[in-house]
């Protein structure tokens, strides 16, 4: 293979493409849209950030403004966690529209995360989200197909392929040259998008740490791989097809199948194969297990009566009122501990069934580079399923700690003779509200993301390798005449 020849074929393809009417216009429109999306997305992200921060502060303020109170009242006063978005969600918003934005965290009750964007939107939201990744994942592939479908067939139809061959250029060089040329043209489209990505990464005030740079770097590499694969496939299909029309039809059909039908079907199949519990069943499952273990609210419960007896024995007293700490606080902390374990177990099961539902899609990553880039892109932009699960787990952990903090206050400061949480008698000083820790959400570590998406990364590399091998094999058998 001669490098010189490949470069000159690529150059020639690049130049020729711009003879096409309308291409410059298309490029211009594409970039104009990119600018609109980026600016708009940036503003929306800033606004969202603002709203989240404002409300988080507001909720905290009213928490801290509580007067001296019974700690159990504070445990039910509870905290809100509002979900912050990663700055890279401007680039790829992933499942962001469908995940709850606010969750109420209180004692012995696990609430759902509510007010997802989609739940407040009309059906239009289901057409998709506008972001840079959508341009790169759905629209640009089509543009690549349009530009490249006749790359080989037109040479065949014009008879120029023979002339090139006679001049001593091998088929390998033609295919590779055209692929490189197509990649260069597509670079004109996607480089500004990557610039937009990097400007988001650099302009961000690093509230999310330096990981944003690593994330952007990996996103860049992934998309480069993805477009290389697409360009090679386009040229290959053009070479395999009898006519330009057939090449275009194959490519468009492929787009429809790989980019639309397979992803949707895979998720439907996953859902019907591994149905998850509905909320009612989920609650019932938790309740059943709790009552099997023992109900701390039930005065005749054997489990908690045993607990009481052993506690009385240890402290060598006959009545809970003689204990050196508030017994109902102790009881609640035990109850909390127990239900939290049971809830977490069920919740893990639920997440596991979601994962199984997603496993069909994740498995198909091997066969479908679009799914690979889709999953990779949203994972790296911290807008994927794992990120959301990590948010939920962090809120539950915080909820648990907060409840136990209140239970401990109750054990320590509330008289054992207190019968009610009402009024100003059985109270804890309000300074303890201020010293209760705030909810701090941290995004999933980049290492964990990479671990989750290892398959997708390998897939993209393998795909590029395989397409190159096919290209070489194919050119060996290619009949020019």
């Amino acid at each position: 293979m001669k490098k010189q020849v490949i470069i000159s074929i690529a150059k020639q393809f690049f130049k020729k493409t711009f003879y096409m009417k309308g291409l410059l216009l298309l490029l211009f429109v594409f970039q104009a849209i990119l600018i609109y999306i980026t600016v708009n997305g940036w503003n929306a992200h800033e606004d969202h950030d603002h709203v989240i921060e404002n409300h988080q502060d507001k909720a905290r303020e009213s928490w801290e403004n509580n007067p001296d109170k019974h700690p159990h009242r504070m445990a039910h006063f509870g905290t809100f966690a509002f979900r912050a978005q990663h700055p890279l969600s401007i680039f790829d918003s992933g499942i962001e529209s469908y995940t709850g934005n606010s969750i109420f965290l209180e004692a012995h009750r696990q609430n759902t995360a509510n007010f997802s964007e989609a739940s407040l939107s009309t059906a239009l939201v289901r057409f998709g989200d506008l972001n840079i990744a959508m341009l790169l994942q759905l629209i640009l592939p089509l543009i690549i197909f349009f530009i490249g479908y006749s790359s080989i067939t037109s040479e065949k139809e014009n008879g120029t392929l023979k002339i090139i061959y006679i001049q001593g250029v091998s088929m390998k060089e033609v295919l590779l040259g055209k692929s490189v040329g197509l990649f260069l043209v597509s670079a004109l489209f996607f480089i500004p998008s990557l610039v937009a990505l990097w400007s988001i990464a650099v302009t961000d005030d690093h509230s999310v740490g330096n990981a944003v740079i690593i994330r952007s770097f990996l996103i860049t590499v992934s998309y480069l791989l993805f477009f290389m694969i697409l360009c090679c496939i386009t040229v290959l299909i053009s070479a395999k097809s009898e006519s330009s029309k057939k090449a275009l039809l194959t490519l468009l059909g492929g787009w429809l199948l790989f980019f639309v039908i397979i992803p949707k079907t895979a998720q439907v199949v996953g859902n019907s194969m591994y149905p998850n519990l509905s909320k009612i069943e989920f609650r019932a499952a938790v309740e059943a297990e709790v009552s099997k273990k023992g109900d701390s609210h039930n005065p005749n419960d054997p489990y908690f009566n045993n607990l009481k007896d052993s506690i009385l024995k240890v402290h060598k007293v006959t009545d809970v009122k003689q204990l050196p700490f508030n017994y109902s606080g102790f009881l609640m902390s035990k109850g909390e501990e127990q239900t939290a374990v049971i809830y977490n177990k069920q919740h893990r099961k639920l997440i596991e069934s979601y994962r199984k539902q997603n496993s069909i899609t994740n498995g198909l990553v091997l066969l479908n580079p679009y799914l690979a880039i889709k999953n990779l892109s949203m994972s790296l932009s911290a807008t994927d399923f794992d990120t959301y699960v990590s948010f939920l787990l962090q809120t539950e952990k915080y909820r648990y700690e907060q409840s136990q903090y209140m239970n401990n206050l109750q054990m320590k400061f509330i008289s054992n003779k207190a019968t009610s949480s009402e009024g100003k008698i059985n109270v804890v000083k309000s300074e303890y509200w201020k010293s209760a820790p705030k909810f701090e959400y941290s995004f999933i570590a980049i290492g964990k993301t990479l671990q989750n998406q290892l398959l997708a990364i390998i897939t993209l590399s393998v795909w590029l390798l395989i397409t190159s091998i096919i290209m070489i094999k194919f050119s060996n058998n290619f009949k020019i005449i």
Partner: protein
Amino acid sequence: MYSILIKQFFRSKTVVLAFSILMVLGILSITTGKQFLTQKSAVVVKTIEKQKEHIKTQTNLHEDDLGLLLYYLKFSFIKPLQPLAGISIGQSDLNTHIQNVSILNLEGQKYDTDLVNPMRLQVGNLDISFLIIFLFPLIVIALNFNILSEEVENGTWKMITIQSKSSFKYLLKKFSVRIFFVFIILGILFLLAKLILDIPFSIDFFHIIIVSYVYILFWFSVCFFVILLRKSSNTNAIVLLVSWLLLVVFLPVLINNYITNKYPVEEAFAMTIKQRDEYHKKWDTDKKETMDKFYKHYPQFKKYGVKNEGFSWLWYYAMQQMGDDESKVEREAMYGKIRSREKLSKKIAQFFPPLQVQLSMNDIANTGLSHHIEFLNATTDFHEKLRLQFYPKIFEDQPASTINWNAYKPEYFKSTSDFNLLKNMLSIILITLFLISTAILKNIKFFN
């Protein structure tokens, strides 16, 4: 004449391929709808079961304290899904169809979501409405883009202009063959859907069918318009595909983004904080003040008076009530924003048939946002009814055993669909007519 055209039509591999793709995906989409409906109705059955169990266990545990019992008791309110929801799943997969509420502060319970995999929601459903809105246009384009240009390129068009009486009539015949068979395919799909999803012959089903046919006709008119620009097959293909990409993929996304950013619903957060604060504040404020507010809302309960010392359920439920009552401003602001989103969506959708069809189908199948808001409002009424039943019993300290708990079965939301076919389809019909007449007028000189 027609028999030859039909033969010619089916000789093309594209046609056979296109129709088989439609049938396969059609069956897949109907199965999706079926599976969705089955899952949802299975949950309804479970809900009825669980409520019975739940009431039984709770009444046993707290039989001597009605106030405490009703703190725990939850009652279900169900929005049954129509079979048509299997055709247009809409937003019904992400908005819960079962509310499970206690008589405590409602605003803290009403927006609880169901457990759904967000990945599934993001990918969206492959239901028939998707097939019609997204894929049928592509098939229509594939069948039509070259019906004139191909003849010109192959040189057969000249023969036709010489031989046939009217070349325009010939073109129309060719066109009508395609319309006929696409309509047949769509008809078969609806028939299958009717049988598999158990859809009764109702005015709603009829409306969905009409909306779909009008939409398909719209795409035929787009093709008709482009064909009669008399460009090459390649140009036609590109122009039609780009219009499809714009109308079905890109513009909807852009419009949704515009609406979402124009009306961000941050009031939801403000409301949810407020309803918490207003209830909890009452633990530390003057009891009489709380009770006065409560009696202002429910003058009929004034006779229960104000007890200043210690805890009472009367005071407790009055405090809970304040969470709802005093977050009203924020709540209305939130609903106002949602209404604005809806209004703007409807307004813009008029000009974009795919959006209009999606919104219309959801409207008919009761799976849209407006329907969910109605359900939320009905939940408020349901909740209020329960409160009014239980409040006096709690305040009078009646024993739980005096209440006939068997009567408390889950209740159903009765929905009313007031879909106006003509009003919703008018704009699409006008656009279609405009495209056809412009195409004919521009070409009048070519036809005799």
